[in-house]
């Protein structure tokens, strides 16, 4: 199996890699994992006035998992919480040209966004 050009691009030049302070009220943190392969992904959103201002990720896993989370951080920036919540893993699959065996990596990224939003809402009593 070979990775698509876009996966390789994200893998070699990951966007928004790193972390924010977990304790910051403006930061929502989502940590999710894929049971089958043990890949783990942390995605953080910096939210102000209902809009995602910035995002960071860190992923321990395969190229597709890294690329999916890297892409997710690019996509969520500038979106409202509600818009970001609507991002579907299938969009990530299409954009990155992921093969069937790697679809779970895109699911991971979608779950991470949702988990980060849930964490933010919980922190700010919006849940």
């Amino acid at each position, binding site marked *: 199996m070979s990775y698509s050009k876009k996966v390789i691009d994200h893998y070699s030049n990951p966007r928004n890699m790193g972390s924010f302070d977990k304790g910051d009220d403006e930061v929502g943190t989502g*940590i*999710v*994992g*894929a*049971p*089958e392969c*043990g890949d*783990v*992904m*942390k995605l953080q959103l910096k939210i102000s006035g209902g809009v995602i201002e910035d995002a960071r990720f*860190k992923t*321990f896993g395969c190229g597709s998992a890294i690329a999916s989370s890297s892409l997710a951080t690019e996509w969520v920036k500038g979106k409202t919480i509600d818009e970001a919540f609507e991002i579907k893993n299938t969009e990530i699959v299409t954009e990155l040209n992921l093969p069937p065996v790697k679809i779970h990596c895109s699911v991971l990224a979608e779950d991470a966004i949702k988990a980060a939003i849930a964490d933010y809402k919980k922190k700010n009593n919006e849940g």
Partner: protein
Amino acid sequence: MNILSEDTGSERGHFFEMAGESRPCWSCQSDQVTFFNCSSCTAIQQFLHDTDYFTSFNMGYKLNIDLDLLEKQYYELSRRFHPDYFQQKPKEEQEISLGNTAFLNKGYQTLKNPQKRAAYLVSLVEGDDHLPTEAPAELFEDIFEIQETLEEIRALDQSDEAEFKKLKTVLDVSLEKMREFELDEKEKLHSLFVKWDCIEADRKGGSFTDEQKGYLPQMKQILSHTAYLDRIINDMKAAV
């Protein structure tokens, strides 16, 4: 009933009944065969391969087993088939002796270990020996932290002993937590063993009961967790 209590009368054990029923002697075609050898031409037999490990070690399909008895059976059976005794025999017999010995070694290693034993039983019942490795969902945050620490340790300057010590302490705490989690999983597995054995003790031949089969998914999940935990615990140990 002990299969090793020699070939006398009805006490011969289930192997002897089984052997005669399945196939005649490979060498002389006589049907006067025992589990170990042919009564007519004395050639060693390979009926072990017709059985599963539970049967060949005469342990029954039980999950909590007497390890001392298992070891005893293993030595006794190994002695009967040991390649040393077949050096002067025809090549075919040497090969069967080797094959039987390999079977016994693998069977002993499988039954000795509770996780391997359970996985083997699951594969027997379900006819599928693929067991996934699965990370327990509630541990992902810990796993992430562990991976982060492992990464920091790998990136560390070898001379920086103070930092290494600090990271090692962090990792040791996680390691302890993973071990505790694994221990809990093993205890859960053990209680399933007890339930399985309870029904198994009353089962009179035939196939496994639906209730027994109902325990298998839980066993599989625990086994996939322990497989994953073993892996990450090894990674952690290797790093420090």
